[in-house]
């Protein structure tokens, strides 16, 4: 029997960037086929080609042995290909039924609505959960929204189901339930493609796994036969060294946070009661599943948004009294030595349309380092930027005046680090500093943070990547539902931290 989906020699480029370079994938009905790879390996691009969202530059697509060309998502759906994207394609203000109806027109509105509602209930029941079709999507949890997406695809008649990083946004328990369900769907005859970068999910739930790296599919293997090391090597290429931890005792408390709570947003409070303190010469890692208040915590620390309650204070070395900075502006905090590495680089880390020099110099301009208020000194800006770029090994710079947005993710992050860390800050707030970066850039970012720590800075590292936190933090706090629920000294036990991330209700 022909494979359910066969992608052959797919290439796709965006401008100068070659996202897919002759990728091949063959998936059968009845299997969960994992697509494993690092961020930026081309997994999502390949799946967007399969779902008709991207048109490949070359290559062929066959569904059940029939050659197809998808001119849009509707056509791929007609061929039974349904994709559940990482950021759900749901209209938040619509109900579940309306969202399903949108993708599956069925006659007149009134009759269709009741038919769809019945269908949703049936499918949900068959999958072993209940779902109220009349609920508005923005009132549902992330896991529930994901189920709506799956139901939507099934109602549309999907027999090839693509899930793009489905567990990234889920808690451990939710992820297990989802993957069990997905396997169930596959065993009833569907083909399921599971895009992931989590080895454990692959080993437990996939029948076969295809590994991607650099826009190419490297190998397809049976995950139970291959060892984790083999899979990792296929995934990342050469092995990369993680920074070793220097044994150095931390100093006095530099930053303390107590009872921090965010203002209520749309009926729920993301940050409830965060209390912790960070000493100088220490990396305090905050682990946790995304959406448990990390973003709000980071914003409160750097002054992006005022917290609803709680106190943030800093203590200068040698001074007895802490200074409260809860209500300080970002600028005052910078003057007090706080540096910020935001999670969303493109939105909060850089002005992508301005030049590299501008993006570097903005961190220092108000100190008068680059000329007076009446006349800024561009030549000095350029020289300082040049020095910093060299020191922080920012590559891909053709001209200092090129737009910062043209830098790759890793180099953009290095530019931000150059701006934030070359002032030798005493407190660093880094939120998901390696999200979306390749392995080498990750290592560079980590070594920078470690170096800053060794130089005496108090570093707050907020990350959803548990390996990152365990790898470089000196102490680990676990954040769940807006609280720091547990703290561990390094080396922290992975399982204990993992339990803390999911156990607290």
């Amino acid at each position: 029997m022909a494979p359910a989906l066969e992608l052959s020699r797919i290439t796709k480029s965006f401008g100068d960037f070659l996202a897919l370079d002759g990728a091949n994938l063959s998936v059968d009905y009845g299997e969960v086929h994992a697509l494993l790879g690092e961020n930026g390996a081309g997994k999502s691009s390949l799946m967007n080609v399969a779902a008709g969202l991207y048109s490949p530059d070359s290559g062929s697509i066959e569904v059940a042995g029939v050659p197809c060309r998808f001119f849009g998502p509707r056509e791929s759906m007609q061929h039974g290909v349904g994709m559940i994207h990482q950021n759900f394609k749901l209209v938040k203000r619509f109900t579940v039924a309306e969202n399903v109806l949108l993708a599956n027109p069925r006659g007149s509105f009134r009759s269709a609505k009741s038919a769809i509602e019945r269908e949703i209930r049936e499918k949900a029941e068959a999958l072993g959960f209940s779902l109220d079709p009349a609920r508005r999507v923005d009132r549902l949890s992330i896991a529930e929204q994901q189920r709506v997406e799956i139901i939507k695809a099934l109602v549309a008649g999907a027999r090839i189901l693509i899930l793009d990083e489905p567990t990234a946004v889920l808690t451990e328990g939710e992820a297990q339930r989802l993957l069990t369900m997905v396997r169930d769907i596959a065993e009833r005859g569907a083909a399921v493609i599971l895009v992931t970068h989590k080895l454990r999910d692959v080993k437990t739930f996939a029948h076969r796994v295809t590994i991607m790296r650099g826009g190419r599919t490297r190998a397809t293997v049976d995950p139970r036969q291959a060892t984790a090391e083999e899979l990792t090597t296929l995934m990342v290429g050469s092995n990369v060294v993680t920074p070793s931890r220097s044994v150095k005792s931390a100093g006095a408390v530099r930053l303390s946070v107590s009872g921090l709570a965010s203002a209520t947003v749309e009926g729920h409070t993301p940050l409830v009661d965060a209390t912790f303190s960070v000493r100088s010469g220490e990396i305090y890692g905050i682990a946790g599943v995304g959406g448990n208040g990390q973003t709000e915590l980071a914003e409160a620390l750097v002054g992006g948004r005022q917290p609803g309650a709680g106190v943030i204070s800093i203590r200068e070395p040698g001074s007895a009294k802490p200074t409260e900075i809860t209500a300080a502006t970002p600028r005052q905090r910078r003057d007090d030595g706080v540096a910020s590495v935001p999670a969303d680089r493109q939105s909060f880390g850089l002005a992508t349309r301005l030049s590299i020099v501008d993006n570097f110099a903005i961190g220092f301009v108000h100190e008068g380092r680059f000329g007076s208020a009446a006349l800024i000194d561009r030549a000095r800006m350029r020289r300082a930027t040049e020095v910093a770029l060299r020191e922080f090994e920012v590559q891909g710079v053709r001209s200092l005046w090129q737009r910062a947005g043209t830098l790759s993710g890793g180099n953009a992050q290095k530019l931000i680090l150059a701006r934030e860390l070359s002032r030798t800050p005493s407190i660093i707030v880094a939120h998901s500093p390696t999200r979306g970066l390749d392995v080498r850039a990750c290592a560079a970012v980590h070594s920078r943070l470690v170096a800053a720590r060794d130089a005496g800075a108090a570093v707050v590292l907020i990350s959803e990547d548990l390996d990152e936190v365990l790898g470089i933090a000196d102490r680990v706090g676990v954040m769940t539902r807006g609280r720091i629920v547990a703290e561990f000294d390094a080396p922290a036990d992975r399982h204990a931290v993992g339990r803390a991330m999911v156990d607290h209700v």
Partner: protein
Amino acid sequence: MHDIIVSWLTNLPSLAVPYALASLGLIISERSGVLSLGAEGLMLVGALAGVAAYLSFGGYPLLALVVAMVAAAVVSILFAVLVVLLRVNQVIAGLALVFFCQGFTNLVGTVANWSNHTISGLHTLPIYPLSELPIVGRVLFSQDLIVYLTIPIFIAVSYFLNRTNTGLRLRAIGENPEAADAAGLNIYLYRFAAVIGGSALVGLAGGYLSVVSAKIWIAGMTSGRGWIAVALVIFARWHPWRALLGALLFGAIEALIPQVAAAAIRVPQYFMLMTPYVATLAVMVWQEVRGRIGSDEPAALGQPYVREERT
């Protein structure tokens, strides 16, 4: 005093109609995600086209109003091409449209000699015997046809937006075009249709101003009503019925101006003429102070849609 109130209420509906129809038209296009600042210009096009058709085609007022709708819809295609296909900044395109229409209608009106000709326009249509009722008869049942039609138009648009598949898709496109695209909808087609359909209503509002209310074409005769309609949409939180409510409010304010003069209250006339604009500002401030909770502002309003762009 009694007379003044009755005549104020009698004038109110016909002054509210242009606001009501224009903001309803804007709601349709904005629900699809296209920010339409061009209302002022499209109303002028409708107003000129209405009078032009009346003068040229033998004085049929209803035909004139249909021509007003068609003319505004045709001009709005230009806007749709700019913002939907060519992804021009919707603020820039909307402003350019207004100023284009202001200049163009002035020019055409002058060259074709359609300016300053009074016409007999559309007459009132008393609904006998209801029109004989005291007060209510004059206020509610001695209006023109378009006033009566406004309510069914609102019912139809409201039904369309909330109770039909097409309306559901239109709103989905304004809320989350990526989701709509993934569901296989043609974003461009829906946005084009929404802009053109909404603009037809805006054109009707303009035609009503010239053919029914003023019974004359004067360059720039909308004097900011289009902008007030844009503000009304924000006030209405993109809900048709609230827009009607706002339109009645502004109709009431506008109807009050001549009554104040008639009542011999000594307020300088130019200060009276400022009231609709000041009231609009007040309403906008009030709206923002209350907060936008419960607002159905389309989440993708003003953003052009591009599929292949990578972020």
